[in-house]
């Protein structure tokens, strides 16, 4: 029974890994490749570790496997975010079928500041009412 569960976990994990590898080989640009590899690859490693914990059925091994799972779960999104950010700033070309790139017009690559599109024009940064009140205070 335990052998059956271990086999299923290992096979599913390897299936996720192979899906990630096919995705990283076939998809057209950097963000889509990361979409395939980080999620499915981490899932495959975690399911393999679950299979290892099931197979040994020992507290020490279970703790180690659980630590690996937690570590992958924490670090995979961070690594993906960091690489994706670096790749975007390098100007890696997106796929030509990309529909939406919301950062393109709203992000200043020099100062790393993000605009929402609702900023007032530079001349009217201080609203007139505030100006008047400050003049009154001076009096």
């Amino acid at each position, binding site marked *: 029974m335990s052998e059956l569960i271990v*086999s299923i976990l290992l*096979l599913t994990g390897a299936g996720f*890994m192979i899906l990630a590898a096919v995705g990283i080989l076939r998809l057209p640009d950097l963000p889509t490749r990361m979409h395939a*590899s980080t999620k499915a690859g*981490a899932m495959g490693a975690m399911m393999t570790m679950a299979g290892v914990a099931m197979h040994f059925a020992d507290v020490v091994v279970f703790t180690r496997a659980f630590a690996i799972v937690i570590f992958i779960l924490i670090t995979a999104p961070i690594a993906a975010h960091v690489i994706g950010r*670096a790749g975007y700033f390098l100007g890696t070309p997106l796929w030509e079928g990309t529909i939406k790139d919301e950062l393109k017009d709203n992000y200043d690559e020099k100062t790393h500041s993000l605009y929402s599109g609702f900023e007032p024009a530079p001349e009217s940064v201080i609203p007139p009412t505030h100006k008047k009140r400050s003049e009154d205070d001076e009096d």
Partner: protein
Amino acid sequence: MLSVVINIVYFMLSVALLFAFIRLTKGPSLPDRVVSLELIASIVVGYVGVHAIDTGVSSLLDVAIVIALTAFLTAVGFARFLERGGRKSE
């Protein structure tokens, strides 16, 4: 039954490793290569886990921990290198 499954899993992981390696050699930009290196590291973590089951040596899990740690550190290091102006293409 488990030994047959382990052989199948070894084969699947090897195919996945081959695909990731093709992307590593082809990859048009450096971030592509870093992403595929990260995938290779997690495939190797899976390999080590399967090998631990195969041989019955549970100490091999420490190797998996270290590989996962170094994969994360290389990803962060490469990203910082790229953002500070590394080689743009290649």
